[in-house]
């Protein structure tokens, strides 16, 4: 067994184990931390694949940015997080996910099975089975990737579109998550009320709640205080 093989097995155990914990652990904060571990493992795969650039990007983007976002989201919504493991359909979900994995394993696994005259398994594709099939590591692949991304004849246009997508996502995220204040908030509340009344008379109208309740209480109090001072 080569060193790489041992590394691979260790990394897969880490990745899959922490992934399982991500989707099963009760504590969401722990789930976010296991997600980080899992991302690290995936970065390890990239190193094994001689894709150092992607390993770095994985660490920066996934661990440095996305995981932090998750942790923030978890902490912001901490007061309503329930300790339940799964929803009412978790058994069915587990069965379906398992069956899908079995189907994929049947197609990719290192064996050859014939079911009703059709061959399954990867054994008839020797390339995938060959432990030494990996080709020589490309030299300056980051450079080639970089030129390819800015070359209009290769991926220039998609690259620009990706940039636009990021911009739009950033603006959209700010827009969606912003706190409504003043007249805007009143209008939104009124619209929600009217829509609810129109669409579903049975549903009680839910007032939009501020993210941090104390803040509005304080604001309310200070307004009251100001009013009292005037008197």
């Amino acid at each position, binding site marked *: 067994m080569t060193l790489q093989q041992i590394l691979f097995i260790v990394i897969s155990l880490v990745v899959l184990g922490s992934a399982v914990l991500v989707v099963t652990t009760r504590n969401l904060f722990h789930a976010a931390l296991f997600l980080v571990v899992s991302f690290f493992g995936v970065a390890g795969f990239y190193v094994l694949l001689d894709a150092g650039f992607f390993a770095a990007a994985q660490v920066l983007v996934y661990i440095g940015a996305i995981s932090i976002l998750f942790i923030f989201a978890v902490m912001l919504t901490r007061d309503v997080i329930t300790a339940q493991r799964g929803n009412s359909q978790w058994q069915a979900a587990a*069965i*379906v996910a398992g069956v899908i994995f079995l*189907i994929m394993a049947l197609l990719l696994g290192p064996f050859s099975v014939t079911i*009703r005259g*059709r061959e399954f398994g990867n054994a008839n594709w020797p390339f995938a089975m060959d432990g030494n099939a990996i080709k020589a590591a490309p030299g300056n692949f980051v450079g080639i990737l970089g030129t390819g991304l800015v070359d209009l004849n290769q991926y220039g246009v998609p690259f620009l579109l990706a940039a636009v997508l990021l911009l739009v996502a950033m603006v959209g995220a700010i827009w969606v998550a912003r706190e409504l204040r003043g007249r805007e908030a009143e209008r939104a509340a009124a619209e929600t009320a009217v829509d609810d009344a*129109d669409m579903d008379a049975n549903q009680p109208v839910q007032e939009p709640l501020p993210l941090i309740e104390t803040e509005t209480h304080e604001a309310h109090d200070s307004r009251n205080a100001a009013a009292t001072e005037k008197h």
Partner: protein
Amino acid sequence: MSRELLGTLTWLAPLPPLLSFAVIVLFTNRYRQISSAIAVVAMLTSCVLSFVVFFNAVGIGNLGEDPIRGIAYSFIPTAGSTFNIGVAVDPLGATFMFMVPLACSLIFIYSTSYMASDPLYTRFFAFLSLFGGAMMGLVVSDNLLSLFVFWELMGFCSYALIGFFYRKPSAYKAAVKAFMTTRVGDMLLLLGIVYLYTQTGTLNFFDVLHNAKVLETLAATPAVLGLGISAAGLIAILIFGGTVGKSAQFPLHVWLPDAMEGPTPVSAMIHAATMVSAGIFLLLRFFPLLQVGGPDNTAFMVVGLIGAITALLGATIAVAQYDIKRVLAFSTISQLGFMVAAIGIGAYGAAVFHLLSHAFFKALLFMGSGSVIHGVEHGHEHVAHAHGDEHGHAEELDHDHGAETASAAPAFDPQDMRNMGGLRKRMPITFYTFLAGGLALAGFPFITAGFWSKDEILADAFHGLSTGSLISTIVFIVLAFSALLTAFYTARQISMTFLGEARTEAAANATESAPAMTFPLIVLAVFAIFFGFVNVPKDFPVLGALFGPAAGWLKSFISTQLVELQAFKEEAQVFNAIPLLTSLVVALGGLGLGWLVYGQKPLKAGQTDPVEKLGGLFTFLHNRWYFDELYRVIFIKPLQAIADNYSRVIDKGVIDWALEGLYKLGVGIAGALKEFDRVIITGGSDLIGNTVRSIGREGRELQSGQVQNYLLSALIAAVVLMVFFLVLAQ
């Protein structure tokens, strides 16, 4: 102008409205005037670009064989080739590039005034721009895929605009209805696209439809499922399914009348310039597929029959409606039936001609009716104010008008023609333009566009009849009768709305609309009158000679489209007096009958409509042949019942029964075996039982609104399909 430049202009033509949608939504949605100005200017720009392409295209002799093509961009790489998206203008597309932007621009201008007091003014213009841009994109598309994308975009816009007054329950219900009904047709269309792609490996119109070899192969291939028709026929019928949904043909016509819930410019947009024309446009595009099966083939029969049924259905219902816009809605359905029936008898040129002339006069009629509604609403507000200000006077008035004002007061309907009358004097411009549109719709001889286009269809149908074609015979008789009804209900509508004395105070105080609303009416009235002269038959007595070489221009221009199929080209027709006499008789007869019943003695206030004397027939027609009720009984109720009883039938009936059997079996075996076995078997069946029970519990809530639930259902379906294709299918 070089072809390359024209191709580039064709690329650019749909862009301004699409860009204006983005600009309005993103940047100017707070500024009403700027937004509407952007929308109007963008549409006018698109109009100018299209006109440049159109007038250049007209000068190209062999446009049919060699259409203007823009650069095609490779869009989706497929295994062996790439899928190219491009634009093209052939004679059919060129005529649409004239009509669509012109009608859209006028509707935009009209809307600036009509919607002026609406709080969601900018949103309206954003959607209107997207709607117009999508239609332009659809017209210039050179392949079925991008056409389908724009087609769906229009579906979305119609949803958003029909439900524009979304606070009103009837409006959002109408929006959902329109969306769901057209979806049925779109599904068929998508199947047609997929089938066409599997058969030919391309979706480009010119590779399929201008290629005699491909067409003949398609015609020679028998269709799947052993339907007994050719692949060409089946594809044509599936694509026609899309038309049935989009162009509101029987049996999917039910959405169009409800689409009246949207603002009136939207109705004009849907009924004239965009939605319904798109359906017919698609069918016209795929005319070669119909044609390749020869005259009177199954596909032609289906199209012709559906068209004839729709024409008759729409015309009869329109006779018994009171809502001014609903009359027009059913007349649209009926006129679309005319076009589809014309395609069904192979009268390609006549269908295009009628589509164009109909677009002009129906846009005119809709905007005219909008102007009427606007005027009556103003009159109503005026009256209400007067009542509030001078109480004593109001009492007097109330006394004069008796019960009518009192009954009308709680819910005054400004669209009800019974509340109108005498508007001729109050709204002269609207009246004369509406009259022009109405006469065109009725097919008033010689001086209206509607006459020439309808006559063309009847002439072609008669030609088919004389050669012994069954479908042509049916179409000729049904369309002649529908045309009679059309003239009658047009006369009824004009008389009830404009003639006689005002039947309500609101009508008496109605005011003429602003110039921004009347200007488009005047322009369209000109087209409604004179557009017919682009296609006066060559051998028409006197007039044909008068027009000389210009006679029959549209038809000869359009027919170059079908150049690849010389073998199927219809032989030159000889002029025949019978269809001409028929169209004269039905148009004048219908108008005369309407005049006798309504025009001579206009309705007095409170008098019942003479049509109501038809009794049961009237009720039947007024309730639109009870189609909505029928669909409720046939489709909606059973589906609801299935959904309601799903848990009872499946969960309790099937699963529990099976489980109980399994369980009993397990207990039985276990009782016979040792303790050890019993634990395993009972435990096993319990596990199965619980799992199945939980799946059943999920199944009960199939329509749960929960994303995770939907994902689970979709994945279960995916697993079933995977197993099927990997293992079971051979």
